[in-house]
Structure formats: structure tokens, C-alpha cells
């Protein structure tokens, strides 16, 4: 590569990064700006930071429970999806049976299912059982896409483990289920961890199901933020503060599992 070409490539990468990050950093900065600085006609880049918005919105406006809802719902759906999905993925990776690929395709379609298409009957269903505005209802709704994510991702991780290991474990006197629990699960541990983090992220970021199924007591941060946007006088400092809290943990998690992101987002078709 010539020097000029290299320079151009680096410049392009810098431009891409600036365009990609500036909007987020602007939101981040806004969460520390006074109302006056935010509403200034000319954008203000250097300012005296204030911490007032965070306690205002999380304590005075009682947004703290929303944070707890986000955590509880994301954890709940992650655990449920793993508990049900990991054994199913193992079956897909190790068993041969008729209609296996059709069933697998069925799991794919559930991952793709547009929430807008099923949220109405889901609302009627949960309403019938008195589950509207409960975390449990949202956990179930989020499991529609997370369960299939687990099945697709974990099938790949199990397939990466040589079959000889199963055979050796069974020679050691483990039953098939025993070999799965005592030998394969620990080996698939890193894959399970990565899958769990992805499930958590997808649930945490989800909007429509929470918006329709739980818009009061059990709403999450993602549904809480738009509630702060009003036609007259949005307090952008507070909006930004909630947005920062709703996104920063996710960015850290995403960086942790970056190696497995490709696999998770392409359903195991492309390896990272």
C-alpha cells in the first residue's frame, strides 16, 4: 500500500468515526448542560457541567423504578430463553430427526416476527389473564425473539464442540443427559455467556411490546424516555440523562461480546 493511499484510508476512517460518534456525544454532553446552554441559538461546545438533571429525573420524577424494570425484564427474558433454548439448541446440534431443518426454520421466523403484527392478540391474551402491565407479560413477549436467538446461536456453539467429547463422556458412564449437563454445558460456557449478553441487550432496547403491554407500572427506560418529550417545553437535559443511563451499560456489554456479535446477529451463519 502506498503512503498516499494509506493516508486517505486513515482519513476516511476518522471521518466515519466522527460522523458515527458525534450525535451520541452531543446527547451525552446535553445531559450535563444547563437548560440555558441546551437552548442556546448557537451550539455550545464548551460549558460548565452540571449534574442536576440526573437526580431530578431519577429521584424527583421517580424514574429509578424504570431502571429496575429494565434490568428485571431483561434478566427475566434472558434466563427464561436460556433455560428453554439451550437444551433445544443441543438437540438441533446433536440429534438427527425428520423435519429438523423445518423446525429450525420455524425458530428463525419467530426471531423475525414483526412485533406490530402480534402485539394486538398478545394484548388480548394477556388482558384475559390479567397480566397487562406486569413484568411477566413483557418477559414472555421478549422471549418470542430471544428464545430463537438462543437456539440459533447455541446450535453453532454446540456444533463447534467435537462429537468425540460426547462419546468420551458417555464412555465414562455419563448418560446422554448427564454428558450434556456435566461436560458440554461447561464447555459451551463462553458461548452461553455471549448469548446471554445479546439477549439482555435485545430485550433492554426493545420498545413496542413494552409500550403496548406495560405502559405504566412496568414500563422500562426505553418507553420512559419518550414520556419526557412534550409538545411544550421538553426538558432535554432530563431526556438526555435518561438516554445516557439507558444506553451506556449496553455499549459496555456490547464491547464485551463484540467477538460474538456477528454470529448472534446473523443467526450463526457468519462467524466473527
Amino acid at each position, binding site marked *: 500500500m502506498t503512503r498516499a493511499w494509506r493516508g486517505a484510508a486513515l482519513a476516511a476512517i476518522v471521518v466515519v468515526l466522527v460522523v458515527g460518534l458525534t450525535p451520541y456525544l452531543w446527547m451525552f454532553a446535553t445531559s450535563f448542560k444547563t437548560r440555558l446552554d441546551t437552548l442556546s441559538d448557537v451550539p455550545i461546545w464548551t460549558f460548565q457541567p452540571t449534574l442536576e438533571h440526573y437526580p431530578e429525573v431519577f429521584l424527583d420524577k421517580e424514574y429509578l423504578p424504570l431502571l429496575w424494570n429494565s434490568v428485571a425484564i431483561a434478566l427475566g427474558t434472558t434466563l427464561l430463553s436460556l433455560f428453554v433454548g439451550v437444551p433445544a439448541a443441543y*438437540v438441533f446440534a446433536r440429534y438427527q430427526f425428520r423435519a429438523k431443518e423445518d423446525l429450525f426454520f420455524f425458530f428463525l421466523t419467530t426471531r423475525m416476527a414483526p412485533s406490530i403484527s402480534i402485539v*394486538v392478540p398478545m394484548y388480548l391474551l394477556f388482558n384475559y389473564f390479567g397480566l397487562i402491565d406486569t413484568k411477566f407479560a413483557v418477559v414472555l413477549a421478549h422471549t418470542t425473539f430471544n428464545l430463537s436467538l438462543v437456539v440459533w446461536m447455541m446450535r453453532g456453539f454446540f456444533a463447534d464442540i467435537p462429537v468425540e467429547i460426547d462419546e468420551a463422556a458417555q464412555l465414562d458412564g455419563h448418560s446422554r443427559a448427564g454428558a450434556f449437563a456435566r461436560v458440554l454445558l461447561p464447555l459451551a460456557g463462553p458461548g452461553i455467556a455471549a448469548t446471554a449478553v445479546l439477549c439482555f441487550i435485545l430485550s433492554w432496547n426493545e420498545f413496542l411490546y413494552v409500550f403496548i403491554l406495560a405502559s405504566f407500572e412496568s414500563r422500562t427506560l426505553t418507553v420512559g*424516555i419518550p414520556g419526557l*418529550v412534550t409538545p411544550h417545553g421538553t426538558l432535554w437535559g432530563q431526556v438526555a440523562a435518561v438516554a445516557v443511563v439507558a444506553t451506556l451499560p449496553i455499549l459496555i456489554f*456490547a464491547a464485551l461480546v*463484540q467477538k460474538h456479535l456477528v454470529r448472534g*446477529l446473523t443467526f450463526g*451463519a457468519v462467524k466473527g
Partner: protein
Amino acid sequence: MKKPKSIGAALATAVWDRGVGVAFLVPGLILLTVILVGPFMTTIGLSFTDLSYALPDRDGNFVGFDNYRRLMRDDPVFWQSVITTLQFVAVAVAVEFVLGFAVALLLSAHIRRRRVVLTLFLVPMMLAPVAVGLIWKLMLQGDFGMLTHYLRTVGLLGEQTAVFSDPDLALAAVILIDIWQWTPFVTLVMLAGLLSLPREPYEAAIMDGAGRFRIFRDITVPLLRPVIALVLLLRGIDAFKEFDKIYILTGGGPGTATELLSVYTWRVNFRDWDLGYGAVCAFMVYLVVLILSAACHTAMTYARGASGNEGRRG
């Protein structure tokens, strides 16, 4: 090799193993049936009724194909939203693909600290779409938006215009915002595809004195074809379902300028409370996604082969 067992014991083990397989698989299937297949069937059922929470006497009477007829003949707003959706998906996905692939090519060349660069580059797509919507709403505010200010300074935006009050600008803006958020996805997947390509064809081509462009056109693109198809389909499906950002940014407006199918479906169901007709719209959205998913499944099968990810499937 397995120790020799009596036939009875072997049979018992086989039956037991089979049972374990069924026990492992069935809970997931039951769960998905209850929370997904059930509601989906209900949607289809509702589409043949006149159920509405807003109008009197519309308590779910069977109306045959009335709703479908209305969709086909008497609902220009639906068809307008189909066109808007097609515009949104086609432009957004095409630009995302070209840009994302270009960045992937840049990053696939030997770059120091590629990991760090990629991590930073992925930030937009990890943000909740709602947060993305709010970030851009803030940036494009009519009175004090940071970007509004600079766009006016360089003369790209009139003093009196706000991006989201002009129909054409609003649609262009939501497309650009989608591109901002999802170009990293294309980069991420294409980069993984590029880095997993075999070396031999390249070495052979360089020996033959092929130029950079010819190598790209005749080796890289054909080898990546399944991954390219997969990326386009995955992005296409997601863009087709887009709701969150539009809801936050424009709510479908001004007028119906940015009303994508999902937003229209939402409006029919949750603003007009016309659940029977809304079910038809919902069913249409689902149908398109199902067809695209089938194509996606095919692409995945090929992509797995192409990126050497076949592994050992038991």
C-alpha cells in the same frame, strides 16, 4: 468405541436418549406456540371480523373478506404507506450496503487497533432505536438543534424550515438516520466475511498480475455473494419492520409523509382501535416478513458454507 452392551440395554439407552431429545425440544415449542403462533392465528381470525373498540356494535361479528376487500380497493392511505415503506427500505438498505461494505474493505486492510476502531464504529447500532430517535430529534430541533444550526449556516436549510415539518425532508431525514444507525451492521458482517476468505485465490490472481479492481470484482465479490445476500435480506427485513425511530421522530408525519407500514398498522390498531381491519394490515406485514425470512434461510445455508462455519453438525 463403545463397550459392547446387551441388546436390551442398548435399546433402553436409545429410547432414553430419544426421550431426552424430546424433553429438551418440546418446552421451547410449547412456549412459542402459546406466545407467538397463537397470537398469529388470532390475528388471522380477527381479520375476518369487524371488531373495533371505537365504534358501536362492532363487537367482532364475522364479515368474511370485507376487510381484505377494503384493503385492496378503498384504502389509498395503506398503499401510500406501502410505497413509502418501499422507498425507505430500498434507499436505506442500498446506501447502508455500499457505505458499510466500503468501510469493511477499509478495515480489512491492515489497520492498527482495528478492534478499537470497530468497537467505536458499532456504537450507533447498539443504541436502543428509541434513543437514536431522541438523539436526532435533539440534533434537528427547529429552534436550537445543533445540526439545524450548522445546516442553516451553510445554507442547506432555510431559516424558517425545520427538517421534520417538511414532508420530503422528513422522509429523507428518517432514511439518513437509519443509515447512520445501521451502516455499522453491514460493516460488521462484511468484515467478518472478508476476513474469513481463503488466501489461495488471491495469491494465484496476484501471480497472474491481476489488478486491485479485477481482484475485487472477480474474486472478492463472487466469494462473498452468500454473505452479501444475507446482509441485504437481514437489513431489508429489519428496515421493513422499522417502527421505533419513526414513532419518536415524526409519528408518521408531517401528514403521512413518513408513515411506514408498521406505523400505519399501529395507527389503525391503537389510534382508530379498528382491530378487525388492523389485523389485515398486521397480517400483510407478517406475510412479507415470512417470505423474506424464507429467502434469508436459503442465504444462511450458503453463507455457512462460504465462511467455513459448517463445523461438525452431529
